[in-house]
């Protein structure tokens, strides 16, 4: 009974910076929100019906984070709630709220102040099963190393192909003024950087950055009045696989496949590789980009590595992937990472991506993964029409 369409009508963001000692997360949220409301031409005090904030307590370093949310984005004494989920999850909630017919305009916020965190790897350890896994006391990122090993073994992709992903994404990031980690590097640089969690090296791993992103969603009827360049949400999907390390599939990203299947079905997309013009997918570790390309059916199983090697996923290639620079180039933004990917797709579809504009595109896909040790992912499909 989905009878109405939903569009992204406003975007606002702060620059992404590796440290931001001069501002608090509250100020970053305010800046992004202010810009988004300007962009959408709405007043949060009476034009926005509901607000969604995406945050996890431990990442914020505060209990019950939603306490801090309303004031900074103009939502005090209004309908607002948080989701402990990735930013794309926030957009999905906004999409659902508008589809109920009860809400016309919804704002979604996600941010990262990861520079405040001294030991992120050990924080993630607390996400492990407290009875079975946490007592081992490891930095939980070893899980990514194990998964990479298994993925390379099953898919036949090579360590060098993973390194090519880093080279491509960091190169793309040079043209993105928001990116923190743009760089010209070589495959050798990646292979020679120090091993963190074998076979991962330091350069294979996305580094954290700070920033806040706000997006305004609206129903079709509102979007047509408010937005000059609405970007329509054609499909959404989200999924969690098992949290158990002992029983999960280690080489296939089932959560990404299932969330994409849901989104493709909603968007009536039968041949993703042909119908998707541009994709921003999770590359928080280099191999994840390859693994997710396969799970999202943007290529066949075992094909991702060679596609990257051939340059098919470069900005000028047949299927541009992570033109923004991805998390390897832009930086990893915690729960806001998904919104950063959507932001790039929106800028591209609006034709506002500057030097990195890909010409002649109509449909884009953004996908995210919530990071080690989760098996949760989201997919969203956006389109000009």
């Amino acid at each position, binding site marked *: 009974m989905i009878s109405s369409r939903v569009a992204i009508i406003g975007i606002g963001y702060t620059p992404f910076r590796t440290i931001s000692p001069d501002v608090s997360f509250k100020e970053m949220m305010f800046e992004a929100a202010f810009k988004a409301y300007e962009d959408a031409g709405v007043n949060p005090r009476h034009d926005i019906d509901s607000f969604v904030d995406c945050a996890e*307590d431990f990442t914020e370093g505060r209990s*019950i984070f939603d*306490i801090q949310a309303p004031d900074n984005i103009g939502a005090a004494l209004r309908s607002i709630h948080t989701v402990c989920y990735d930013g794309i999850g926030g957009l999905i909630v906004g999409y659902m709220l508008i*589809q109920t017919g009860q809400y016309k305009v919804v704002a979604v916020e996600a941010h990262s102040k990861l520079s405040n965190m001294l030991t992120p790897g050990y924080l993630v350890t607390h996400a492990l099963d407290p009875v079975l896994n946490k007592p081992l006391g490891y930095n939980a990122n070893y899980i990514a190393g194990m998964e990479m090993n298994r993925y390379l073994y099953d898919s036949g992709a090579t360590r060098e192909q993973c390194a090519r992903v880093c080279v491509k994404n960091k190169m793309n990031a040079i043209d993105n003024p928001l990116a923190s980690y743009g760089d010209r590097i070589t495959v050798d640089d990646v292979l020679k950087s120090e091993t963190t969690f074998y076979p991962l090296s330091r350069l294979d791993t996305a580094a954290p950055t700070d920033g806040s992103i706000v997006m305004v969603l609206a129903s079709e009827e509102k979007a047509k009045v408010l937005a000059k360049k609405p970007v329509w949400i054609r499909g959404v999907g989200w999924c*969690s*696989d098992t949290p158990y390390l002992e029983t999960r599939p280690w080489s296939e990203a089932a959560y990404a496949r299932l969330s994409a299947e849901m989104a493709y079905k909603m968007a009536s997309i039968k041949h993703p590789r042909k119908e998707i013009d541009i994709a921003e997918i999770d590359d928080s570790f280099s191999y994840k980009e390859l693994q997710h390309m396969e799970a999202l059916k943007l290529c066949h199983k075992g094909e991702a590595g060679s596609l990257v090697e051939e340059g098919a996923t470069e900005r000028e290639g047949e299927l541009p992937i992570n033109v923004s620079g991805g998390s390897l180039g832009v930086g990893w933004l915690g729960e806001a990472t998904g919104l950063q990917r959507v932001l790039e797709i929106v800028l591209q579809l609006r034709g506002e991506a500057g030097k990195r504009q890909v010409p002649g595109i109509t449909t884009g896909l953004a996908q995210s993964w919530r990071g080690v040790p989760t098996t949760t992912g989201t997919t969203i499909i956006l389109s000009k029409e």
Partner: protein
Amino acid sequence: MAMRKVAIVGAGMTKFMRRALETGKELAWEANKMALDSCGLTMNDIESVAVGTAPDAFDMVHMKSEYLTDGTSGWRKPTMRGFVGGGTGVFTVAQGWYHVASGLFDTCLVIGEEKMSSCMPHPQAAFVTCWDQFTESPLQASLLWFFAWEMNRYMNAHGITEREIALSSVKNKKNALDHPCAQLAAEITVDDVMNSEVMAWPVKRLDVSPTSDGAAALVLASENVARRITDKPVWIEGVGWCLDSMYVGQRDLYYPQYVEVAARMAYEMAGITEPRREIHIAEPYDPFDYKELHHIEGLLLCDKGQAPKLLADGYFNRDGNLPTCPSGGLLGVGNAIAASGVMKVAELYWQLRGEAGKRQVPGKPKKGVAQAWGDEMQVGTVVVVGT
């Protein structure tokens, strides 16, 4: 666009207790299974899951809903956790509502889980980091201080006495005697409350609900599916939620404005114009006895400052004009934060279907309201259900 109707078709909960031996996953599964069994469904019939669980700091599990996925039957399904502090429980029901009302799903499992006992020596410690880091956290304030301010302000504004408020604790703990899952059911007197240890004046030990472990679950379904499952669906007719500013010092605590805003949202959606006449039964949030009265006023079920008088007249008793917390509420059944909110809606579900056993209120109630509250005196979440 006509709103898609959403029904509650099944409910389940675990016993609430001080220290459960089960893990959070197991508690969640127990409530989940009971809810599914109650309507003859299995995990495979569930298309989406809405999870509610309060701060991760309670059991030191980061991204707790990810960890709970097995217990919430969210495995390989769209599963999402909504979070509004203490208001989470009732909000989770609203979250389940928008999953189904959006047209994306025909069924949604709503689950609230809480395991507070892992936090040693007391979950109160988890709250130390929730205040503003510059102006409030350095005070190292206990949550009880904040409640003491609010209770004091409420009493002062209306000239209410501690004894009048204590009656709410007496009523709820007595109601809970009939609840098989209750943790602190008891026959006590106003004197017992008055003589109990002072925690932060005027809050005394028996004014406060216990900390609990437990879980509660509901099965939601769209109209077509609900009619196939049961001939007694309970409809979710209105939902509302609201967060006020975090700067508690800038607000007058005598009245929960945010609850009123959330209630008006829910009443408007439900087409309720005169809540005092149209609502037959209420489950306001009662982590403290004065909070029940405070919230009854916020829900527009009586005039400001009048709740204590009506309570003394027996108006809110199980056989009164407007039974409130017939379950026993948080004071009696227990305060397993997110689970308690879901439990409140589950109680309305059982009451409206006439399945509440010894707790059944007379007169076949047709419309009920459940409400939760949380954060820094800041959140109101409201769900209106009807037959």
